[in-house]
């Protein structure tokens, strides 16, 4: 079973991605469905049998999701390559604009240690570490910086200029 980094701990993932084998997760796992699929076949997802999460691709229009956001306990945002930066804005918007309090999960091939600080500071709290990357190193990477100029989610949205994060 997949393990994810959740609040600084490596835990067994209790969510499945749409299309994954149900045996890949513990019983009762939630299901993460791409926004595109939810919009293409809304009737299929009107009364889901399990908890629903939504998966956002870089080019997805976040505004399409916002009216429905209360339906989702989890939002997964894709980072398919290290230079794809739209996911950071998606995360910031969900946390600071919309006030999304659920699980914000970074997924994709680029979710490795060198992205961790920026991801955490934009509001992610769960990381599906890319295959082949060392989760412990990712955990360590979260402590690379003890200061920041910009206020961020890690600062509990105090939004002060030039702050020392209490934790990241």
């Amino acid at each position, binding site marked *: 079973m997949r393990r994810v980094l959740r609040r600084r701990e490596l835990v067994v993932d209790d969510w499945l991605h749409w299309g994954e084998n149900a045996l890949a997760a513990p019983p009762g796992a939630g299901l993460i469905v791409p926004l595109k699929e939810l919009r293409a076949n809304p009737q299929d997802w009107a009364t889901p049998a399990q908890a629903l999460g939504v998966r956002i691709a*870089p080019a997805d229009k976040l505004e399409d999701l916002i009216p429905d956001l209360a339906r989702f306990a989890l939002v997964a945002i894709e980072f398919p390559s*290290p*230079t*794809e*930066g*739209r996911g*950071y*804005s998606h995360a*910031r918007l969900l946390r*600071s*604009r919309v006030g999304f309090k659920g699980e914000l999960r970074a997924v994709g091939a680029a979710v*490795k240690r*060198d992205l961790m*600080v*920026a*991801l955490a*500071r*934009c509001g992610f709290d769960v990381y599906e570490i890319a295959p082949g990357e060392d989760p412990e190193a990712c955990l360590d990477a979260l402590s*690379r*910086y*003890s*200061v*920041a*100029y*910009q*206020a*961020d989610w890690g600062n509990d*949205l105090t*939004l002060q*200029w*030039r702050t*020392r994060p209490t934790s990241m």
Partner: protein
Amino acid sequence: MYRYDDIDQTLVDQRVREFRDQTRRFLAGELSEEEFRPLRLRNGLYIQRHAPMLRIAIPYGLLSSDQLRTLAAIATRYDRGYGHFTTRQNLQLNWPELARVPDILEELAAVQMHAIQTSGNCVRNVTADHLAGVAPDELDDPRPYCEIIRQWASLHPEFTYLPRKFKIAVTGAAADRAASEVHDIGLHMRRDGAGAIGFEVLVGGGLGRAPAIGQTICEFLPLAELLAYLEAILRVYNRYGRRDNIHKARIKVLVKTLGAAQFRGEVEAEWRAARASAPQLPLAEVERVRAFFKPPPYEALADIDASVARDSEFRAWYRYNTRPHRVPGYRAVFVSLKAHGRPPGDMSSQQMTALAALADERSFGLIRVAHDQNLLLADVRQQDLHDTWLALRREQLATPNIGLLTDMIACPGLDYCSLANAGTINVARDIQQRFDDLDYLYDIGEIEIKMSGCMNACGHHHVGHIGVLGVEKHGEEWYQITLGGSVNGFTALGEVIGPSVPQRAVPAVIEDLVEVYRAQRAEGERFIDTYRRVGLTPFKERVYASRAAAA
């Protein structure tokens, strides 16, 4: 100048540690070249023809003498004893060894310097008017705001991987000496009716492929909103800028596609929507940063004409290489990095060390970098000018050619850069040779030649009065010539005069262009004025008539 506090220093130190680990992993084979690339680029490190190139940030072009001494020592210890100043007020080292770059960064951090975001698809070094704080035509010193923007942009978590590079320039004077209208964002300081500071915001300028001039999207942005508004622009760009085609990824393409009015609407909508969560700029922080840029302790002096009763060589230097100062008894002194026979913008460690000492002695220990690849001592007493000139001349830093034909801008070109199509250093040298007669240069007067080795336009060729762009043609180095570009008050993009010319013909073509000007100029007209009056045709005819005759 700004001095780091504990937060600034800790951040830079931790960045060095992070990059040391990334470099170690790359050298150990734990990171592929593809994975390491965006990581090293975010720290100013390119892989070039012969070696890596390290671009060191000089925020808004301001250096202390200690910093310049450190750059000299680094260039000696880790490189070949020289560095190259760029059009974005940075310094490039052309021969460092990759494994030792973390050590260079550590030495830089010890004097409050870094290479953070000097390349890569992120917010780059913020640039400013090189006469900031001393120019008589200035509304207010832009550098405190540059420093605030530098901090805001440094390791900004949301704008870590933009569609493309992003350049910001700030000016506080009537004349735009920072080429701000060809930056992704140009900020022009303004005052409102009550005298409060704010900014006119221009967006979408840029050189490179499809050059564009920035358009105003906000006439007056109150200071407290500066970061919130920048964040709104960056968020719109980060979300909607193109990522499918590197040549269409700059913000200028987004602005052009949407139109300035719609782009402005998007930014304003984002700005309003983000109000509750946008970064506020506390006035106490503005005051804290402004305090670092208080004027130095000037003496109460009267203006004198320092050129009276001096020899003609000094008078020429005084005329071309010094500028008026807002404080009586002082002048700003250009340090020419355009000595004939030297690549434009290059400076040896010995010259840097000597200049640092001179700055300590004569200009409050500060040195500035101008975007045209010269340096300045901004605060020299007029009574010290002759001695300053002698000292600069000893180091070959007093070529009296600022603003003249041989004060060319040139990128490093094919000799160093792996992006270049053609050489620039050898062409600059050939032009310098052809125009080596100072009296001829003085007769030609003010003219800006700007040369780039490829379309990326690091040499700003589009905005040269004469632009020279290296192109590759059947494996040979050819050059496309443009006329009529300008920045500094009137921003215009040059027009191509016709088919490109071979390398050996470039100096003669420039002489042809100059001769048309000399024949047609009216009293008091500069090259660019004559061009604007008579147009392209006479220049074009002369260049191609003589080429056809020779062929």
